[in-house]
Structure formats: structure tokens, C-alpha cells
């Protein structure tokens, strides 16, 4: 019997898992995809919001600033990249300046330090590539950027190291409430647990229906993002927001942790919660609006595009709390700023579980920190040379665009990568300007070798996403050309 089963291995489920493994509990996590973070989390823009944008009087507003402050420590403990690059919300006219002043006020009320209005001279000095039509900007020094998938992997690896029972390819299809526990079927296997945390993202409504709950109601809101070549690194150093409107944060220009520039996201209501298609209109909108902020941005520098679906509740706020089914806790509607709030959401969920009757006693053997994975691209030549003398695989480049070595690929496998996307999100192999043109076959070879399977078994992201197949067979024979 498990104490807690978490449904969903997005950044929220992963953060809750790690938080729960601090205690003397038997915890499992069920993820429907082949690896954690492969749902909406991998498409997240990676912004750790400064905290001033989020409207007061909401649960989002309560959790965002607390969450923001936890990321420095989290990145330090778990060995993933975090940069507090700050953000700049820009105004093109006096009406927008007024809105920015309200945002500044709202941030100061929340106790966020350092928020200040910059006049046009300061804006030009600090971010010379912004549009000349900008009249003022609000600087929020507390904003940052992370890699959302790296955060998921680091959180889950830490949780697993502390005893989390992780199940992937395990979609939950059945939950039954018994007097003192839940019966659950996930990935065809049967589990029992005293409590259940529903962190299933866009699927949270379907999961809640399994125990007869009418909440949450989840609608999908798709966001398209476009990734630009590192050539543009430094075109802006802060995340650039347009002045928000009552309905949208708008299209942003985001200098990612890895120095690519990301532009987006769109916000489009979608019926199909798995509709992650990008579109011609999305692309036009994103580039037109990004160029309004930073005129040097062009479609010509695009190297990749993708989309994710946000889980949205009818009142647009997070829905976190106990339900009419004792022991079943909803953690739903976690859209922006959900990544920022994730650490504080995890703490809140632990508190709610305690109120539901979960016994919490801290373990003495919890290991909160994880060794930082080596990224050759982030090392100096001297550091890399030294590593290579110990292990020559650190001098064997697999992905040339992002300088990823064979040693890093092997390490990613040891840490749990089982697919090409899993390798890519852990190491950046295939994420650069040639988009895997050169390294795909090398990564596939290594993955096949390490897992002891033929290349035809390697997938992009599990299930039916095969990449290559065997040559044509006729009557069971390989056709030989003569």
C-alpha cells in the first residue's frame, strides 16, 4: 500500500514528488508518457516570473513570489541552470505607462524588491536593441530563466534517489475509492494508495471524473513558441514583455538559459487537449509582435517551433485543494505562472495532504542535493581538457552545434533518458541550429548500444514514434541487390 500516488509527471508532479520524499512515506508517481516532463512542461517558456505581473486576490498571486524565491536554492541543490536575468515590461504610450505603474505598485505591495520604472534613456542604455518607439519600461530584477525540462528531470531524479517509485508509460485508467484507500490501475497494473494527488495537467478533469468529481473543469489554451539561432544571443539580456492587456500577457522575447532566443507564446483556445500543432497564423502573429518589441528579430533565424497546451480553469486561477472525496487532492489549472510557483505549490500540497490525515515525519536520510551533470559547452577549455584526460569520451563530440560529448550522452542514459527527446532535453544534443541533422544517427547508435537493442527500437518519444525500420522483407528474406 502506497501512502501517496501522484498522477502526472510534469513539473508540478515532479516537485510534489521530491517534496514528499523528505518524509517517511511510500510514494509513487504515474506518468502516462515514456519520460517525465514530456507533456506541457517541455513546451514551457522557462520563465521564472518576477512576481509583479500576477494579479492580486488570486491563488496564483499568493504563490508566485514565494515560488520565485525558491528557485535559486533549488537550482543550486539539484544542479540545473538558473539565471536571474530580470524582466522589462515596455510601454509605447502614456496609457501603457500608467498600466506599468499599477504593476509596479502591485509588485511592491507583494514585497518584491527592486522594481523600478526606467525612462527612455535608461531603456536604450540597458537594452539598445529594443524598439525606438518604446517610451518607458518597468524593470523587475527578480525574474529569471530555467530549462523547464531540466528542472523536471532534476526533481524526479532527486525524488527517485530518495525512494520514489516512478512509473512511466503508465496512464491512469481506473480509480476506485474504497473505505480507507484507493484502487488504481495505471499502465495496466493495479496499485493501492491511501491518498491521490491529481497533477495530471490538461488531463486533470478526466482523472477527477474517475472518482466522480465534477471539478476541475479544464479547457485547453495552446501556446506556440519559436526558437531562434544563438547567433542572436545578447540581442536582449532581459525577458521582454509588452504591456499586458486584461486578457493576455502578450508575445514575449525570452533569452533562454542556453542563449537561444525564444519568441511567443500565442494563446488560443483548443478543443483537443493534445493539439500541439503550430500554425502559419501563429508564426505570423508571433514574429510581427516580437518585432514590434525588438525590430532585429526575423523568421530567418528560426531553428525550431513547438506548441504546448495550458490547462485552464473557468476562473483562470489555480485550483489546488482537498475535494469531496477524502484523500483525493486536486492540483489543477496550473498555467502561467505555474512553473514559477511549482516549489510553493509542492509545499502547499504537502500541507493539504497533512490536513487530510497524512502522517508526516521527516526522514533523517533525505538527500536533497544532486550532482550537477557535466555540460561540456559550459566548461572552459582547461576544464574540458582536464576531464578528457580522465575520460576520453569527454573529447568525443556527438552534437557539434551544441558541443555535446559522448560522455554526456552516456551519463544522460544512466540518469534515465530512454528516447531521442530524452537525450535531447537532458544534453541539448540535436537542439541546435542543424536540429539533429548530424547527431541523430550518432545518438541513436549510442542509445541502441546502451539499451542493448537495435536502432529500429529507438524512438523519438516512445510509443509509435519510431524513427527507422528494417529494410524490406519478402517471404521473410532480406532482398539482396545483385
Amino acid at each position: 500500500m502506497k501512502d501517496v500516488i501522484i498522477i502526472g509527471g510534469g513539473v508540478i508532479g515532479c516537485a510534489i514528488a521530491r517534496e514528499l520524499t523528505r518524509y517517511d512515506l511510500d510514494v509513487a508517481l504515474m506518468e502516462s508518457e515514456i519520460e517525465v516532463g514530456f507533456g506541457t512542461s517541455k513546451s514551457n517558456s522557462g520563465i521564472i516570473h518576477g512576481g509583479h505581473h500576477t494579479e492580486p486576490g488570486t491563488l496564483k498571486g499568493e504563490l508566485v513570489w514565494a515560488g520565485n524565491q525558491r528557485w535559486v536554492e533549488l537550482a543550486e541543490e539539484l544542479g540545473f541552470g538558473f539565471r536571474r536575468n530580470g524582466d522589462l515590461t515596455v510601454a509605447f504610450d502614456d496609457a501603457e505607462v500608467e498600466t506599468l505603474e499599477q504593476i509596479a505598485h502591485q509588485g511592491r505591495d507583494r514585497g518584491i524588491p527592486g522594481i523600478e520604472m526606467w525612462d527612455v534613456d535608461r531603456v536604450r542604455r540597458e537594452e539598445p536593441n529594443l524598439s525606438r518607439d518604446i517610451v518607458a519600461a518597468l524593470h523587475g530584477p527578480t525574474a529569471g530563466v530555467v530549462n523547464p525540462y531540466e528542472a523536471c528531470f532534476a526533481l524526479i531524479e532527486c525524488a527517485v534517489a530518495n525512494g520514489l517509485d516512478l512509473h512511466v508509460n503508465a496512464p491512469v485508467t481506473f480509480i476506485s475509492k474504497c473505505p480507507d484507500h484507493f484502487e488504481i490501475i495505471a499502465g495496466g497494473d493495479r496499485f493501492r494508495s491511501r491518498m491521490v494527488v491529481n497533477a495530471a495537467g490538461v488531463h486533470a478533469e478526466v482523472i477527477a471524473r474517475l472518482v466522480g468529481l465534477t471539478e476541475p473543469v479544464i479547457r485547453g489554451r495552446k501556446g506556440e513558441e519559436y526558437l531562434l539561432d544563438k547567433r542572436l544571443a545578447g540581442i536582449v539580456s532581459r525577458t521582454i514583455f509588452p504591456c499586458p492587456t486584461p486578457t493576455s500577457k502578450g508575445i514575449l522575447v525570452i533569452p533562454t538559459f542556453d542563449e537561444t532566443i525564444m519568441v511567443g507564446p500565442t494563446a488560443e483556445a483548443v478543443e483537443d487537449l493534445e493539439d500541439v500543432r503550430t500554425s502559419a497564423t501563429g508564426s505570423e502573429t508571433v514574429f510581427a509582435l516580437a518585432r514590434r518589441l525588438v525590430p532585429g528579430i526575423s523568421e530567418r533565424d528560426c531553428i525550431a517551433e513547438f506548441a504546448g497546451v495550458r490547462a485552464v480553469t473557468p476562473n483562470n486561477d489555480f485550483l489546488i485543494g482537498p475535494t469531496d472525496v477524502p484523500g483525493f487532492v486536486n492540483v489543477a489549472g496550473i498555467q502561467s505562472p505555474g512553473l514559477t510557483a511549482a516549489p510553493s505549490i509542492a509545499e502547499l500540497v504537502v500541507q493539504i495532504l497533512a490536513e487530510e490525515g497524512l502522517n508526516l515525519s521527516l526522514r533523517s536520510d533525505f538527500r536533497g542535493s544532486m550532482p550537477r551533470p557535466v555540460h561540456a559547452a559550459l566548461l572552459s577549455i582547461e576544464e574540458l581538457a582536464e576531464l578528457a584526460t580522465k575520460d576520453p569520451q569527454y573529447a568525443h563530440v556527438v552534437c557539434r552545434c551544441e558541443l555535446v560529448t559522448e560522455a554526456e550522452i552516456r551519463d544522460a542514459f544512466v540518469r534515465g533518458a530512454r528516447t531521442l527527446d530524452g537525450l535531447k532535453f537532458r544534453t541539448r544534443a540535436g537542439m541546435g541550429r542543424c536540429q539533429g541533422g548530424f547527431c541523430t544517427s550518432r545518438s541513436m547508435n549510442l542509445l541502441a548500444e546502451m539499451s542493448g537493442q537495435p536502432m529500429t527500437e529507438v524512438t523519438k518519444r516512445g510509443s509509435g514514434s519510431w524513427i527507422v525500420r528494417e529494410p524490406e522483407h519478402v517471404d521473410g528474406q532480406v532482398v539482396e541487390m545483385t
Partner: protein
Amino acid sequence: MRPLSTILDRYDVVIVGAGPAGMAAALAALGTGVERVLMVDREAEAGGILNQCIHNGFGLHYFGEELTGPEYAQRFLTDLLDHNIDIATDCYVVDISLDRVVTLMSPEIGVRQVAAGAVVLAMGARERTRGAIRIPGSRPSGVMTAGLAQKFVNQLGVMPGTRVAILGSGDIGLIMARRMKLEGMDVPGVFEIMPHANGLNRNIVQCLDDFDTPLHLSTTVVEIHGKDRVEGVTVAPVDGQLRPDMSRTRTIQCDTLLVSIGLIPENELSQRLGLRIDPATSGPVVSSTMETSRDGVFAAGNVVHIHDVVDFVSQEALLSGENAGRFVTGRRPPADNIRLSAGINVASIVPHTISSDREHTVYLRVREPLEKSWLRLGSVYEKRLRYVVPAEMVSLKVRPRFLENFHGDTLTIDILPRDEPVRDER
């Protein structure tokens, strides 16, 4: 291949890339009498992309006979192995400093720095990807560049799919259309957004027509379908501004989409060196000796401009390697005194400058196809051309006698329709 047991701290010439450009440059450099030459390549073997081009058609110009890619590469490699040359494979050039210190890494030698008297950049090109043109739709597996598919089929013995649509009529895509048919795959069609094909005419005939594979011009892919694996693509005709007509779409069932939409010179090292880059070629600006804007740094092959025939790569690289050798041995020819400028219907020109004291081969690409045309070199020379298309490079021999009475510093090259009256200014 001779393994690299000891690497020196100093070389006369370091060549980055052991594809056709690198190998020819190495041979020519050795021919000038320099003694220490190092050729570096990221792959496990020299030969570059030729190793996966197992079809024939190589060498007609250079060797006067028809060879496969690996055979063409082997001719150069065999020659090279007769010389005293160091070849570092599985080896990646991290950086080249302004004073030509090359930082290398490979499992065999670790991370090392070597000083170079001259450097030849021969990194080749990479393929444009789906992301570069933002094809709308989902992101399933099964969308790949034609070159990756070629590597799968020809080198790794695995197939990219069962039914394969091809976007773009670049030569690699055309070659792969035939290759996949031979391997039993279905190729429902090649879709090209431009009103003309992007590959060589001989490839259209031999790789599409001969196999009944349809080529749909002025047509592009407007959506990719499939959650896990490609399930189909929607195509639409485009208008004169290349905008798709979404009222005339149709969906093609397929499990794979190959993209063959052009090559981009791999100039990341060139950019680190701060070389002047020509936006028309995306490669470094080069003189008639293939020297870049930085002293002692030469370039050759697809890194300079995209070629359609490897034979011309070899010829250009011989020039580059020879001049790298001459640079080191202090026998540099006189500097160029004439700048070449792209005029009417000329997209790009290489080299960017020439010298009036010797003969040069100048390579051009046109913007628009013309049935009959005139090539005009300033007011000093003109020549009839049969037909010109953007997919086929035009070469022009510029002889010193053309320039005897020319005293300017810039010559503009135009390629004009022949029915237009042509002034005779000679």
C-alpha cells in the same frame, strides 16, 4: 587510415574538414613543398559527405570518368596517404584564434592546441531543416532532412519509412527519391515551392522521371499530420508571391517527410574569426586566391558557396590549398586589384575580387532562369549562354587579355535575356 599517434604543436597548414574540399586543399598545400600539414575531421573517416553518396555521377569533369562518391573520395585519399600528412578524425575544432591557434578535441588526442602557419576552412554545409521554414502542423517522428535519410539508408542500412513524401527539389532529395524507390519505399511525390526545380536537370530525369515519381512545382507542404509518427502531409499550390492557396489543398498519406530545401555553409568558425561574410552566399568573402578577410585564413568548397558538382569543389580547393602553402612559404601572388559586383540577374559571385595579371575561374549563380542569355562582364567581355537556371552554377574564365584596357576597380557581371538588344562595347 593512418592513425594519428603524435600530434605536433605547430603545423604549416591546418585544414578544417576532410571532405572533398579539405582533401584537395591538403594535396595542393603539400604540392607547394610545405612539410607539416594537418587535416582534421569530425567524422570517423575522411571523405566527408561523399562517403554516403553511393550513387554515381561524380568525377566527370575532374577525372573524365564517372565514379561513385566513395570512389571519388578514395582517389584523393589514396594520393594523400602517399604524402607525409597527419589526419585527425573523430576530431572537432572548437576554436581558431586570431593568431591561428587551433583548439582541437578528440578521444585520441584529448583537448589540444596547435599553431598553424595557414588555415584552410573546409567545413562544408549543413541542410536547412523544417524549423527554418516553419512548416505548420504537429511534430511527430519521421520528418528529417534528405541527407540524414541518405545516411540511414546508405551507411546504416536502416530505412527512414515506408511511404515518403519529399519537400524541396534539391539534389539530395532527388537522389534519395530514386534510392528509396530502389529500396522498395513508395515516393508519392516531390513538392517544390518554386516554379522551377532546385536540383540538376540530370537528376530530375534520372531520379524522378525514370521512376515515374511526380514533381509538383509551385506547391508546398502546408501542414504535417500525425501525433507519434507522420501520418500524412497537406500540400497546396502557391501563387507568384509563394503564398499557398488554402482553398486548393490535398492530403497525401505518408509516414515520412524528407526535407530537401537547401544547404547552409557551416560558418560558425568563420564567424568566431570575425571573417567578412557575403550575405548572398552565406560564406566568407574570398579573394582570387581563396583567402578570406583575415590573413592566412583560406576557405574552399561549400563553406564558401554551395556547389552543385563536387568536381568544382575540388578545383576550387586545389587553388585554396596551393595559396595556403604559398602564404606559408612567402610566395604570395600579387594582391587583387578588381572587385566583382553582382549585377542584373546575378545572385552571387565567387571569388569576390580578381587580379588583372592572371587567369581566374569565376563562379556565378543566377536569380531567374533564362532560355537564352548573354553574360556581360562590365564592358570588357560578353558571352552567349545557352540556358541558365539558379540550380546550376555558371562558370566564367576571366583571362588577362579581357582586362588589358580596363583601368577601373570594379567590374559588374550581368546575365541578360538574349532577345534584349545587347550593346557591343568592345
